[in-house]
C-alpha cells in the first residue's frame, strides 16, 4: 500500500514540533498517529526540512519498537506480556487471538488491514493483569474467551475503539 504524498499535513505536523533534528521522534509519532504507521513516502520531505539524512530517520524509526514501517490494521491489539500479565496467563490469550485472526509472530496484520496483533512488554497496568489494549482503550483482566468475545464485537462494529 503506497501513500499519496500529502505535503500539507506533513508540514503541519513538522511545524507543530519545529523543523529541527531534535523533534524527530515527536514528528514521527505525529505521522504515525495520523496513518497508524510511517509511510516511507514522507521520509525524503521530513529529512529535507529537518536537515537530517533519510538514513538517520530510518535509524530512529527502526530503533523504537513503537514505530512501524508497515501499514497497520484499523484495530491494533496489543497483548501485554510483561511479567505480571505473563504469569497471569497472557500467552493463551495471544494464542487464541492469533488462531482466530490467522496471524503469527511474523505476520502481525490481517490481509484486509482490519486487525494488527502485537505483544507489548509492559503497559504499566499490572494490577489489571492480564491486560490488552485495542488502539488506546484498555481491556483489563482478560481471558481467552473474553478476548474472543471482544474480537467478535469489534468485527461486528458493536464496540468503538
Amino acid at each position, binding site marked *: 500500500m503506497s501513500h499519496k504524498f500529502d505535503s500539507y499535513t506533513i508540514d503541519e505536523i513538522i511545524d507543530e514540533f519545529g523543523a529541527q533534528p531534535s523533534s524527530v521522534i515527536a514528528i514521527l509519532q505525529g505521522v504515525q498517529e495520523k496513518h497508524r504507521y510511517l509511510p*516511507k513516502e514522507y*521520509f*525524503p520531505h521530513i529529512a*529535507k526540512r529537518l536537515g*537530517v*539524512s*533519510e*538514513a*538517520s*530517520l*530510518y*535509524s530512529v524509526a*527502526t*530503533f523504537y519498537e513503537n514505530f512501524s*514501517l508497515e501499514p497497520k490494521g484499523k484495530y491494533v491489539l496489543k497483548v501485554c506480556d510483561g511479567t505480571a500479565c505473563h504469569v497471569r496467563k497472557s500467552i493463551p490469550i495471544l494464542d487464541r487471538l492469533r488462531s482466530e485472526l490467522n496471524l503469527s509472530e511474523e505476520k502481525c496484520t490481517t490481509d484486509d488491514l482490519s486487525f494488527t496483533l502485537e505483544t507489548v512488554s509492559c503497559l504499566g497496568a499490572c494490577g489489571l493483569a492480564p491486560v490488552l489494549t485495542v488502539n488506546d482503550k484498555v481491556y483489563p483482566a482478560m481471558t481467552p474467551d473474553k478476548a474472543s468475545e471482544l474480537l467478535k464485537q469489534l468485527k461486528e462494529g458493536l464496540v468503538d475503539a
Partner: protein
Amino acid sequence: MENRNNIMIIDGMPVEINGEKNLLELIRKVNIKMPTFCYHSELSIYGACRMCVVENEWDEIEAACSTVPRAGMEIRTNTERLRKYRKNILELLLAHHCRDCTTCRNNGKCKLQDLAMRFGIDDVRFPNTAAEPDIDDSSVCITKDANKCILCGDCVRMCNEVQNVGAIDFAHRGSKMTISCAFERPIAESPCVGCGQCAAVCPTGAIIVKYDFHKIWEALDDKNTKVTAQIAPAVRVALGKELGVAPGENAMGKIVAVLHRMGFDEVYDTSTGADLTVLEESNEFLKRLGEGGHDIPLFSSCCPAWIQFCEKKYPELLPHVSTCRSPMQMFASVIHEQHKTSSRRHYHVAIMPCTAKKFEAVRPEFALDDKDPVDAVITTQELIQMIKESGIIFSEIEPEAVDMPFGSATGAGMIFGVTGGVTEAVLRRVSSDKSKTALAAITYQGVRGLEGIKEAVIPYGDETLRIAMVSGLGNASALIDRIKEGEHYDFVEVMACPGGCINGAGQPFASADAKEQRGDGLYAADKMCSTRRSEENMLVMDMYSGVLKNRVHDLLHTHYTARGE
C-alpha cells in the same frame, strides 16, 4: 613541572595536561599505544568500543576517549582487570565475526586482527555465531559486508559529520543492529557519492574499496592490446612504507619504471591533463566574469565525489559548476582520440588516489565513440597490490621518464592533488604578472595549507577576486550555506576528501603527519619543474592545433544533470 595545577598521573608517571580534550590523547602522547576501534580524532567521540578503558584512583573504570583529563587525577592503563576486559571484548567481537582472515581483503590491515594478535587471543570461549556474508556490491566504488562489521560507527560519523552525505546510519537495535542505508536500499541507490572515506576509517574489512586491477592483468597479457596508463599527481607521494618509500617522497619515476616492467606500453602523467583543465577552466572563468558575471561563483569540477554531491544535494547549483571534464577525463579523451584509428585494441588505465573516479569512468556523459575513454580506474592501494603481486622489488628499480607523445607536464598540474592546488594553478594562469616573484607571491595568498576552508582575495585588473577553497564535503555544505545567505565568491574549489586528493580513500592508510608530507611532496615536485604555468606546456598548447582542433567542446567539456535524492 613547576605548575602543579596541571599535572596528572598516568601509570605512576607525572604527566602535564596541555589542553588535551580527552585522556586518550594524553595517554597516547606519553607513548602508550592505547587500543581503540571507535576513536578518530577528526570524528566526534562515540565511546562504544570500550577498548580504551582505564582505572582511576577509586578503582572505577572509565573510557579514556570520553573522559576529560583533570589535574591531580591518577589513572592506570594496564592492569590485570583492564587486560581481562579488553580480551573479553575482543573475544565477544570475534565470536560474532567472520574469521577467514586469509581470504579477507583487509588481511594485515585489520584493527581487529591486529588487536587480537596484540592481546594474544588464541582461543575464543564462545561459539562462533557469525552469519553468512551479507554483501552490498551495488556501488562501483566500495563494497560493504555487514558480517564483518563491529558497529564502531566510524563510517557513520565520517559520512554524516565530515562529509555531510548521510548515506548510511545505524538501523534496528540490539543484536539486530546493522549499518544501513535508508530502508536497506543498496548503496548505489543511496545519497552515497563514492568518496570512500567510510572505507578509509573502517577498522575491519566491512567496508572496502572495490578492486579492479585483475582485469588489467588480463589486458597486459593480451598481445593484441595496447595498454596505456595515466598516473594522478597524488599517487606518486603516497606509496608509503609498504613499498619502503618515505612518506611524501615523490616516487613518480619508479612507478613509471615499474609499470613499464609490468608491460604497460605507454605511461603518462595526469598532470598533463590537469594543464588542459587549467587552461579550459581559466578560460571559462574569465569568460563568465567578462559576460557580466553570470553563474558566478564558478565551482571547480575536477572532483567526481563533489560532482555527485552537487547533483544529488544541490542540483540548483549545477549551472555554477564548471563544464570542464576532470583532468583524468580530459586526458583520457585526448589519448582515446590518438588511438581510435589504431588496429590494435587500446586499453587505458587511470591510477588514482580516489574511489569516486571509478564511478566517473563509467559515466555515460564521458563516452566517446560508444566507449568509456578510461577502461579501468585503480587506486594507489591497488597499484601497491599489483607491484607486490608482480614480485618486482620496488626499492631496486631505476626511475624512468614518462612516454611521448604526451610526456610533458607543468608544476601547475602536479599541485592539483592537494587542496588549494587547482586554485593556485588557475591563478598562475590568469595572473598578468608572469614573473617568478609573482609565482611565489601567489603561494602567500592563503591558497596553501590543509585547513578545510581557505579564502583568498586576489587583485585582478581594477577589481579583486574572492576565492574559496574547501576540502571535505561537510565544509563544502557550510560554504554553500554562506553563499546562499549572500556571501560573494568568484571562484570556489571543492575537493571531497579532507586535505584534497592526497588523502583520497584509494590511498594507503597514513598518519596525520604522513598525510601532510604528501602535500609537501607535491609542492616540492612543482618547484622542481622547469615550467610551472600550464600555458607554458608547449605540448598541451600544440594539442589545440592538433588533436583538439574543432573538438575542444566534445573532448574537454560536458554538462551534468540533477540526480534526484
